[in-house]
């Protein structure tokens, strides 16, 4: 269709900033417009590049990018009949070395959200707030007010290293 097909006559039309101000009489205004457009180009490039370059620079706390495994320590640190609470990301997790192997559960009591602890004398995971007791072997409620068992967390032992597996 004729009107919008390539118009050869316009192929040499002004297209650059040098030529754009042909219609402006005053050289002062022309200079001002050129300065403004230069600022435009430079500031736009700066605005776009700043976040991109910042994003590309690796953060100092490397390894935090969704690591699937969180080291807890060695089996020597956690003999059978002992337990410890560690942070997995933003969630506290209790790791207990039981006779049935190393187990890990969410350390947030299902009653009111207190952080539970392992009690070696009672051989139970006990919530200090209302004496809710959980089984260290499967996280189930032994006694007290908790309505639900502690959700289990996957744990892996390699040689003597204990890892929590998130996911």
């Amino acid at each position, binding site marked *: 269709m004729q009107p919008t*097909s390539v118009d050869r006559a316009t*192929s040499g039309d002004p297209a650059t900033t040098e030529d754009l101000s042909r219609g402006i009489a005053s050289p002062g205004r022309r200079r001002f417009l050129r300065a403004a457009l230069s600022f435009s180009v430079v500031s736009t490039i700066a605005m776009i590049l700043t976040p991109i370059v910042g994003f590309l620079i690796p953060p100092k706390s490397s390894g935090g*990018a*969704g690591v699937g495994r969180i080291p807890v320590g060695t089996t020597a640190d956690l003999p059978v009949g002992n337990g410890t609470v560690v942070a997995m990301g933003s969630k506290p997790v209790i790791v207990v070395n039981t006779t049935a192997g190393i187990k890990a559960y969410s350390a947030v009591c299902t009653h009111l959200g207190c952080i539970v602890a392992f009690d070696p004398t009672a051989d139970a995971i006990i919530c200090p707030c209302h004496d809710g007791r959980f089984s260290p072997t499967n996280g189930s409620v032994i006694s007290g007010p908790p309505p639900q068992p502690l959700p289990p967390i996957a744990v892996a032992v390699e040689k003597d290293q204990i890892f929590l597996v998130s996911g």
Partner: protein
Amino acid sequence: MASPDTPIDSGHRLSDWFDERLGARDLFAALVHVRIPANARTFYFGGVTLFLFGVQVVTGTLLVLYYKPTPDAAFDSVKYITSVVEFGWLIRSVHHWAANLMIVFLVLHLARVFIQAAYKYPRELIWLMGIGLLAVTIGFGFTGYLLPWDQRAYWATVVGTEIAGGVPVVGPALLDLLRGGADVTDATLGRFFGMHVLVLPLLLGAFLVAHLTIVHQLGLANPRRPTPRKQAVTRTPTVVVPGTTPERLKPFFPNYVLDEAIAWAAMLALLVVLASMLPAGLEAKANPIETPAHVKPEWYFLAAYQLLKIVPRDVGIMAPIVGIAILGLLPFLDRNPEVRARKRPLALLLGLVVAVSVAGLSVWGYYS
């Protein structure tokens, strides 16, 4: 073709060097030095959509450098991007908002083309490519939504794929194909990630090239007068259709391009404001055994979601599919050559009814 009009001076030496080897100036001239109807009113909707797609390509490429597409790591990697990586929150939030705005402007562009009847002869294929772009963009939204692997992402995908599974005959197979199994699992995440970063971008690129190439070949439609049928047309630029006055034209470059650049700059400002004021959030990590109280899909699926709740299942699932199909075939169904809005009351009324009911259903779905 060389450009003999252009004086060769020191400022142009580098571009001349390249031009002699590439012929780029000619190509550029062929691409942008066109004229468009002086009364064309595009409102820059299509161009803004293109800009937003460009933003998505840039931010998406950046995000994929840190993102890990496995259920174990996806959530944590998104959290890492958002809270640890410098400007990570900005890149992710801009990606989030540009995705939403892209759909908004795509629909506005579609509405503009519909009202100005720019889909009519000879532009049927442009319209068809545009519907393809719409479908791909919705696919982007659907697949991208799962990637943060938080509760909202997970359950919206469970509901969304279930709807796909309700399509008659092919539903169960489609569900299996989408999820990569019976449930939304790591297999689903892998598939959605692959679709989102590889399949859909290539598809969108292909549709976009076709869309823009044909637009370039046929030029922008005049919203006041229909393009005459072939027998009345010659390819020479100066032919005047007998019995009509010559069309008033204006240059595409730089006039129109400059207007478009202003619109893009305004869009960039809007993106920065949205990303800063309402940054993309992150709910609790996806938990397949704990359904949240209110599972709702993204806003652009709300109309389909609400329809499904109020009509029989098969009807609710088929209606959007048939609707998109009819929309795609619109130029072949609407044979009336008239383009002026005032002379097409039926088409506009139908369009209005559809638009109002989709908007109504969406609002209803939002508040239900």
